[in-house]
């Protein structure tokens, strides 16, 4: 079974790729997929009839209980026959239906094949979630196929309507599945049916699942999309919207009915909606003048019947429902194909315009007649046989609901019989009398528009065999099975038995004798004949009833209301202002966390104001600096205040006995301040003063709240001292990481994956910065000229640095830089055991570069290409070192310790952390160089001479 599903995907891929070149022959290429399903179904039939249930399983997402548990029940087999058999015929039909120059045939055929695969998935899946995935896939395929003519508004909107309705139904289904699966503790369909959970959650789940089923199967009041779906090409209508996809909802109701038929709302919903749909669909079917819409409403009505029958859950009704399902698929697919043929020949489907088609296309007319007889349930057809079974089943079931269905079924049969006659007569003969409103126009031939004029029967061309044969085959099958129901009886019985153990006792009979069911059938046909005879009065009555809003209008106004609401909400929330967005997010965060934290706020054990004067002083300096950053309006001064905060932080780290932190912070702050200065020399000196608005209050409230919540968080979570788990880190650091500096070992060994990620962030940010600064983007020159002049506020161009260079500084730097670089290397190598390491070393080396740039501006220490090399190469080195951990079946970043005897130095111990740290060093050094170049304004002269220093 998985192989078959894979075959569908493979065929779809090939067909989709080859499609544009093959024209309509692409459908022959697609044929293997449904053909394989059919052949496979044929080989499995005898096994399954003997009671076997072939299974196959593929693990997919075990954590979610989402596996491909495939299982072929007899009902699944029956559906496979339909999916495969009708699929083959539809593809053959499609190859005659389209022309070679029709664009998008490859896409069309591929979607059709994917759909066939997904449909198989639905009927084979024993996993409710797997079933759901396939279910949604069919919705998407249906959307694509309805909207195949993507230049037509009608097709696109109908496709969207179908997707919205079936899609929201699908969401309900998912929610229902989750509820039921949670209660049952399993997602297996067979397990849930075998051991049905109960409770209010299950009841809610059942209602949601039913919502999914009735939207998919187009029951009232969700039927609006199916007539719209008739905008699809006829092969799609025949395949998806009559034979298979709309049966998915029926299938779901069928397989769940044994489990949930007795759950509160199940029968009222299925029977209520089902019977309402039967009446409404059959009535609409009788009213329409478009052949395809007559069929579409007939399908809706039949789906209502199926859901009602399966929903009842009785032995014989279930058995009969399986039969009706087969009969409907067979005759309706055939009739749709006939509609396509007529449309093909006459370029219209309006029964008022069609005339004389029967004489011109006799074979088509006979085919249609055979299929129509089955639809009208005339004796000696499969339609009759199965409807007899349904009537008998309903007569035998002593339930109020069954009686409701029975009465509706008789009315439905009468209406359907009349609609079928109207269909056939309208399509193939002179047609019914035009309704009164049109009599006036047709009396004066010159006034009638071309769109309403009758067609000229002599100009009809005969259908090609590829069009006619599939339709005729299905029509003949309907009659043959009607005369000899024994051919399909075993399969129907077996399928019914999978739903209801006792259902196998029943049989389909070509003629069950003179009984009440037969009498009902005959009287329904008679009533149908009366309706036909009274066609004129009926049409007038219908015109009078026509007032009132249609499902399409209701859907449209609902959609418009939804979008209006969405617009209003979005308009209110999306003010477009970044501060407002941020304030909203922050206040929400503060309110949520603050509410949780408030009860837990207390002073933790072992708290002190401060451990040393340095700590108190440092903290005070941090706060003062922060206040300075906020209050100072001049950019440079504000930046210097930020630097003060950073250096005070370094002091706090010193007080905390964290030498690595203090070193890093000190160096980083230096580079950051330099970077700020490099950018700020371009910008206006002061922040423009902010006009007082309501916004200021919002800022104060938000920032105050955030500060309080952070304090509450720290107080609520604070503990007395170094947390116990870190002791473990400390004890493993030396033996495992081969180093004494625990912080460095953590960074380069124990948590080295974090460091690798962090390096990637640095490298990405720096490359992004280079892209924004060094590399001139297209159109820059034009923008430079078009830019409004801020000459008065703008600082002179970056050459200012150059003007300040002094000879003394230059000499001093010449002497210092080599020392700084050497020291940075020392820090790099000693870092594993003493304060230092790759970051600190790289930053110290970077500081050397800063010095050099200050002394000799305009002469970048590296070519900018080398910056890329340093950053990229360093990252690559770190990654490679990390990956060597895999060597010999060990883990990523599992580093080794090696000791070599080196002449003069003695034993040198080298750990994997060293090359890793060297990568870090290179990235950091490259980053600092990049900052100096990118933000330092040393643009490449050849590209942008105007800004170069």
């Amino acid at each position, binding site marked *: 079974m998985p192989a078959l599903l894979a075959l569908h995907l493979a065929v779809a891929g090939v067909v989709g790729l080859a499609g544009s070149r093959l024209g309509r022959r692409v459908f022959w290429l697609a044929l293997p997929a449904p053909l394989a399903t059919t052949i496979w179904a044929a080989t499995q039939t005898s096994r399954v009839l003997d009671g076997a249930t072939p299974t196959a399983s593929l693990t997919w997402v075990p954590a979610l209980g989402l596996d491909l548990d495939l299982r072929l029940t007899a009902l699944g087999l029956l559906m496979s026959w339909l999916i495969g058999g009708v699929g083959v015929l539809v593809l053959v039909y499609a190859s005659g239906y389209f022309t070679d120059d029709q664009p998008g045939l490859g896409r069309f055929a591929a979607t059709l094949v994917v759909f066939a695969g997904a449909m198989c998935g639905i009927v084979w899946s024993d996993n409710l979630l797997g079933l759901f995935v396939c279910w949604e896939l069919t919705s998407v395929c249906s959307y694509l196929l309805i909207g195949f003519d993507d230049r037509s508004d009608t097709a696109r909107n109908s496709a969207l309507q179908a997707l919205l309705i079936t899609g929201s139904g699908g969401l309900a289904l998912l929610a229902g599945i989750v509820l039921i699966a949670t209660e049952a503790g399993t997602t297996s369909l067979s397990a849930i049916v075998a051991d049905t959970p109960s409770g209010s959650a299950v009841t809610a789940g059942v209602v949601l699942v039913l919502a999914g089923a009735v939207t998919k199967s187009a029951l009232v009041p969700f039927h609006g999309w199916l007539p*719209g779906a008739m905008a699809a090409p006829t092969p799609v209508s025949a395949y998806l919207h009559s034979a298979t996809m709309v049966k998915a909802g029926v299938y779901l109701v069928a397989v769940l009915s044994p489990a949930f038929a007795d759950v509160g709302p199940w029968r009222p919903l299925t029977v209520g909606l089902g019977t309402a749909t039967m009446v409404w669909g059959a009535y609409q079917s009788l009213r329409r003048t478009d052949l395809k819409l007559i069929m579409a409403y007939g399908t809706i009505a039949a789906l209502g019947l199926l859901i009602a029958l399966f929903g009842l859950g009785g032995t014989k009704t279930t058995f009969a429902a399986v039969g009706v399902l087969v009969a409907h698929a067979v005759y309706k697919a055939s009739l749709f194909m006939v509609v396509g043929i007529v*449309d093909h020949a006459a370029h219209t489907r309006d029964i008022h315009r069609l005339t004389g088609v029967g004489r011109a296309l006799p074979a088509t007319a006979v085919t249609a007649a055979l299929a129509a007889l089955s639809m009208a349930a005339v004796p000696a057809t499969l339609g009759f046989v199965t409807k007899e079974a349904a009537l008998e089943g309903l007569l035998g079931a002593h339930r109020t609901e069954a009686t409701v269905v029975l009465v509706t079924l008789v009315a439905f049969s009468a209406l359907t019989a009349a609609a079928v006659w109207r269909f056939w007569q309208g399509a193939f003969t002179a047609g019914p009398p035009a309704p009164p409103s049109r009599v006036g126009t047709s009396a004066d031939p010159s006034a009638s528009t071309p769109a309403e004029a009758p067609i000229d029967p002599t100009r009809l061309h005969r259908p090609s065999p590829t069009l006619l044969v599939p339709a005729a085959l299905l029509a003949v099958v309907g009659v043959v099975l009607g005369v000899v129901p024994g051919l399909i009886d075993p399969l129907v019985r077996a399928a019914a038995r999978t739903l209801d153990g006792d259902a196998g006792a029943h049989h389909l009979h070509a003629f069950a004798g003179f009984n009440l069911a037969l009498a009902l059938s005959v009287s329904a046909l008679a009533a149908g004949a009366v309706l036909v005879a009274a066609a004129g009065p009926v049409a007038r009555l219908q015109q009078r009833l026509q007032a009132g809003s249609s499902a399409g209008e209701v859907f449209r106004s609902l959609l418009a209301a939804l979008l209006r609401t969405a617009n209003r909400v*979005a*308009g209110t929330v999306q003010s477009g202002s970044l501060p407002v967005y941020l304030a909203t997010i922050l206040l929400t965060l503060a309110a949520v966390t603050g509410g949780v934290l408030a009860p837990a706020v207390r002073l933790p054990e072992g708290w*002190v104001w401060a451990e040393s004067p340095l700590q108190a002083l440092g903290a005070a300096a941090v706060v003062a600096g922060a206040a300075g950053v906020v209050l100072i309006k001049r950019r440079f001064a504000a930046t210097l205040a930020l630097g003060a905060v950073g250096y005070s932080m370094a002091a706090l780290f010193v007080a905390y006995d964290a030498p690595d932190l203090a070193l890093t912070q000190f160096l980083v702050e230096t580079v950051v301040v330099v970077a700020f200065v490099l950018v700020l020399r371009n910008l206006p000196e002061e922040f423009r003063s902010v006009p007082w608005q309501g916004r200021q209050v919002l800022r104060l409230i938000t*920032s105050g709240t955030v500060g309080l919540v952070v304090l509450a968080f720290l107080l609520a979570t604070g503990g007395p001292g170094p947390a116990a788990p870190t002791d473990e880190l400390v004890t493993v650091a*030396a033996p495992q990481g081969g180093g004494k500096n625990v912080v460095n070992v953590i960074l380069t060994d124990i948590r080295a994956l974090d460091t690798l990620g962090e390096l990637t962030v640095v490298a990405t940010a720096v490359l992004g910065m280079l892209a924004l*600064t060094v590399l001139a983007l297209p159109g820059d020159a034009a923008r430079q000229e078009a830019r409004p002049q801020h000459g008065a506020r703008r600082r002179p161009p970056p050459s200012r640095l150059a003007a300040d260079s002094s000879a003394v500084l230059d000499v001093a730097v010449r002497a210092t830089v080599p020392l700084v670089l050497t020291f940075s290397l020392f820090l790099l190598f000693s870092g594993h055991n003493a*304060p230092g390491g790759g970051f600190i070393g790289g930053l110290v080396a970077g500081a050397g570069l800063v010095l050099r740039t200050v002394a000799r501006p305009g002469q970048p220490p590296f070519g900018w290409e080398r910056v890329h090399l340093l950053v990229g190469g360093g990252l690559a080195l770190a990654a490679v070192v990390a990956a060597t951990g895999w060597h010999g079946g060990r883990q990523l970043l599992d580093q080794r310790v090696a000791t070599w005897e080196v002449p003069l130095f003695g034993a040198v111990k080298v750990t994997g952390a060293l090359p890793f740290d060297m990568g870090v060093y290179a990235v950091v050094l490259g980053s600092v160089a990049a900052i100096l170049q990118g933000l330092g304004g040393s643009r490449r002269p050849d590209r942008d001479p105007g800004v170069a220093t």
Partner: protein
Amino acid sequence: MILVLALATAALFSAGTYLLLQRRLTRILLGLALLGHGSVLALLVAGGRTGEPAFSDGSTPARFSDPLVQALALTAIVITFAVTVFLLALANRSWELTGDDEVEDDAEDRRVAARTGVETLGEHFEIAPDEREFGHSTDTGPGGGTRASREVR
């Protein structure tokens, strides 16, 4: 728990948030830098009281300053650094393009906010098939002629 550090953290977060809500990219950046400092300090506060420097020879582990906190703080410092540098380049770019570093309102969001009705929508969304008959074929069959029913009616 060292209380002054906790208080300083709260102050840094307040100041940072205030600056974050400004219109100038430079001030937003300064705010982000302060928030970064605040986060590092928060990590330190979570580490509890001070101990010995974390070097694993000589002293007993229980008296170390929490090394894990320090490692996390180092990572935080470096990432804040990288982000700051990138945003600086962004501010620079913004100045190059517009001569200013103001973060303006999102024009698209403004348009959404200004739009109240669905007038345009109603024209675009129309479902023909239900009440109108198809009239001509909407099928895309061979020779299946006209496009949409609205052309017919």
